[in-house]
């Protein structure tokens, strides 16, 4: 199936550490900005369906032995708002069971408005169908910069 591109936000809408939850094709998806990089995850926890992307952003705490704390990648782990399972935003993997318990992630990228408006051909040339990014409901300005998500 061909992938589609969706414009989900202007870059400024999601500052570093920020997030936006959008609905695309009846899927709820959370888009996060981690130090200028954008990541998108399905807003449904693999454990019991909790709205994962509304959870706390935190770091990952590890330990070599009791009383020793190593705090890693602050702000890059998402804790489910329900039962608090931890997920790596970059990969969607749960800490508990990285191989089997993971949340669906989506490719994102930032595109200038000009490219979105003018370079459809090029986008489609890279295997993408024409998405809804030119819709009037989400006006794309030629001088804007947009977070785009592949679905």
């Amino acid at each position, binding site marked *: 199936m061909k992938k589609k591109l969706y414009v989900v936000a202007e870059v400024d809408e999601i500052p570093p550490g920020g997030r936006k939850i959008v609905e695309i094709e009846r899927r709820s998806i959370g888009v996060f900005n981690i130090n200028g990089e954008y990541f998108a995850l399905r807003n449904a926890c693999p454990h019991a369906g909790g709205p994962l992307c509304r959870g706390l952003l935190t770091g990952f705490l590890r330990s070599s032995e*009791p009383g020793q704390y190593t705090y890693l990648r602050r702000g890059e782990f998402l804790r489910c708002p329900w039962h608090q*399972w931890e997920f790596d935003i970059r990969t969607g993997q749960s800490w508990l069971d990285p191989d089997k318990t993971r949340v669906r992630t989506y490719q994102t990228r930032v595109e200038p408005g000009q490219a979105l408006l003018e370079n459809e051909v090029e986008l489609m040339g890279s295997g993408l169908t024409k998405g809804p990014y030119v819709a009037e409901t989400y006006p794309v300005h030629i001088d804007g910069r947009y977070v785009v998500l592949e679905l």
Partner: protein
Amino acid sequence: MNGAPAPPIRPIDCDVHNAVPSIEVLYPYLEDHWRDYLVERGVTSLEPNYYPRGLPISCLPGARPSSGGPPGSDLDLLREQVLGGVRYAILNCLYSIQSIHNEDWAAAMATALNQWQVEHWLDLDDRLRASIVVPVRSPGRAAEEIERWGDHPGFVQVLLLARSSTPYGKRHHWPIYAAAVRHRLPVGIHAGGVTENPILPVGWPSHYVEDYAGAAQVFQTQLVSLVCEGVFGKFPELRVVLTESGVTWLPALLWRLDKNWKGLRSEVPWVDRPPSEIVREHVRLTVQPFDGPRTAEGVRRVMDHLGSDELLLFSSDYPHWHARDPYESCLRHLSAESQRRVLRENSLATYRLGPETGPDGDGEHG
């Protein structure tokens, strides 16, 4: 072992109670000032009250020595009633030196008690093994006591009692585990203990039966503490044997602990794998009392939920008298292979019992 077919192999009985017939037997092992301390202050017994004299649970019919001492105080009777049928019996002496608040006195009594165990038990029958009694309120002194006896071949376990003033996972207890591991001794946690805290986490009950029933909760909370405090990560060699703890509560506890750990583990980041996995690797439970269902299918399910027949160690809890003996409540429902594990292989893997001779390891007593 009433009423059950004789087992094909000689089991290792991991919970037998030897009792101090009277406090005077410890005098020879105490320094004069402690001996006089006992006499001058009228200390006539440190016998615990875990098993009220008149209650049937406290004594198997026929297990009270004719000498008049407490059940478990007579080696000949023990030979007759237990040792004839087992390869080894591991003694857990419950004489309550743990109740003593005076650190020096407790340490002196522990040493005396252990010396007495060597001379009056271990030296007299080579089927006997014993547990080192320690002054648990001062973990440093407890560790010293373990060092004192740790190389004696007769001692195969460090004995702690389930009720403690603070949870056993807490770091101030760790010297005990370090010493135990140094001597390849598992730590046995047996029912009983100190009474700073009510036996029920909701206060003191009226009846003995509540007290005894509540003991299972004490084991549960100690296990949670040991896991959450990371004791088994810190001491990867450590084995803990829960003795007279009941068995069947374990799956429910592990389900709950695993589930909570999945969400709350960042509070205890050193617990880096599911608690159930840690417990299966490090913890064993003795089978008496089993506290199981009455049907074969029920017991099969319990074993299935436990996830392994390697967790259980045979025990009689002699001279205590439970509603059912371990053959009736558990063993008869297990496969021959599981029986063999429970009766002896698991214990051989847990305790420092020395090389075995024949296929059944019956050796000179076979």
